[in-house]
């Protein structure tokens, strides 16, 4: 079974993407395997509704560990099982809370070990940041690292919000040749393309 890591900045919508993608694939309930930075792990069963209520939030760094869910993705006449793993959000600077720093270290450790990377970017930020340093430093580094490894795709999230379309154009200029799928994790838009990408590369 291949592992697919969902990474990106804090508050870009990674957890919501994972939960809604699971729902998109027909799941009402998930068994979430939670791996803490100290090496311990536990499993918990959630309905998608409850998971959305409890695991997502408006503030950054709601997720502070690796949270995996196993999903069956239709492929040809069969199915492929994939482990989709949600991670702690990345930031440009050093976070003051040691727990967050530890969780970020866990995310970066995992980046090297997984088979597939889905990198969520909020394109609206790119539009606001202005021309030159448009793409944030951390997203830029993730993209550079992941391009070397292959099996990597950018998901431009929050496309339902104003300003996203312009941001997407800028993102495409910043990372020419990179496969970018515009999505809305909230409204499950673009998920069909994500499903095709994941199943093809797993």
């Amino acid at each position, binding site marked *: 079974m291949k592992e697919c890591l969902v990474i990106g900045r804090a508050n870009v919508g990674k957890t919501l993407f994972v939960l809604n993608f699971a729902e998109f694939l027909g799941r009402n309930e998930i068994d979430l395997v939670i791996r803490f930075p100290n090496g311990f792990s536990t499993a918990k069963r959630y309905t998608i509704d409850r998971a959305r209520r409890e695991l997502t939030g408006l503030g950054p760094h709601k997720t502070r560990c690796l949270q995996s869910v196993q999903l069956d993705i239709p492929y040809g006449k069969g199915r492929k099982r994939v482990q989709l793993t949600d991670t702690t959000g990345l930031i440009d600077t050093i976070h003051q809370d040691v727990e967050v720093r530890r969780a970020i270290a866990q995310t970066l450790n995992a980046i090297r070990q997984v088979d597939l990377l889905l990198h969520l970017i909020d394109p609206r930020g790119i539009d606001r940041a202005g021309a030159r340093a448009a793409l944030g430093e951390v997203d830029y580094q993730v993209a550079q690292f992941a391009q070397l490894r292959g099996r990597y795709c950018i998901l431009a999230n929050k496309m339902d919000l104003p300003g996203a379309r312009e941001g997407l154009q800028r993102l495409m200029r*910043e990372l020419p040749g990179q496969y970018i799928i515009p999505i809305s994790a909230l409204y499950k838009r673009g998920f069909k393309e994500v499903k095709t990408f994941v199943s093809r590369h797993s």
Partner: protein
Amino acid sequence: MARKGNPARVSFSVGKVSYLLEKGDLSPVEALEILRQQEEQLAFRGEEEKSRLLLEQALQELDALVGLEPVKKLVRELQAFVQVQQLRRQEGLLTEPLVLHMVFMGNPGTGKTTVARILGKIFREMGVLRKGHLVEVERADLVGEYIGHTAQKTREQIKKALDGILFIDEAYSLARGGEKDFGKESIDCLVKAMEDHKDNLILILAGYQREMAHFLRINPGLRSRFPIHIIFPDYTMEELLEIAELMLRQREYQLDKGAREEIIKILQRSSGAAVENPGNARLVRNIIERAIRRQAVRIVGQEKLEREDLMTITREDIGDGEEE
């Protein structure tokens, strides 16, 4: 898009990058930059160098395990043996056949599966196995319910494990049912596979020491086919305490004097004759997890809580180690 590069910290190990990140000496951006530079270097140096680095990482992983000194020593010996045999072959000298089937003996929670997994990585990077993955099975995965079913099930698992390691937990259970049991059929099938796939399959039989020794005694044919026997000793009291303190440190808790004494008492009691599987890391983990829950219950109602109170585990939290 041009970005400024960060000067050489490329040689940092993965562990060091994590440590510096946690400590706050490195930002995620800097860490990612190091990872990227390492990846570039790997791509540049080619496959051979990549294998060497990955081998180093696997050995580091092994060294990071608490205790297990005899196991670590044996793994190093194996590594040297394989390397020398490969060099001898290159020079056209006679080589010993690389029979690496093993028997792991030890109580649960002493690291058998973990070591097997690391061995898989080591053998992959040394070119002994192409994939080096671990397929973990037990009796139920191998033994069928009617005539012919067992061979089919066993062969399926063998097929999955080709180019890697087939790890049979509690292997002695294959000989459990006496003459008429299908377990025998499974053993025969495994022996045949060991001959047929001697270059691309490693078999590891694992289980309690006493039962495994008995199992091999009554199956002499098997014994001769497994040249490597590794005994996983139970952790010593000091190692278990080290593990306990490491677990607590990682979670930002600390033991007071009474709690430490209480843990020693529980560990001593559990290593007594009455308990089947003494000293293992899982027991320590259970004690710690329970203590953390009990500490929470103890302090949750208190009005004024200092940082120290939130961190300290007392004798009362450890209790007698039993669930109420």
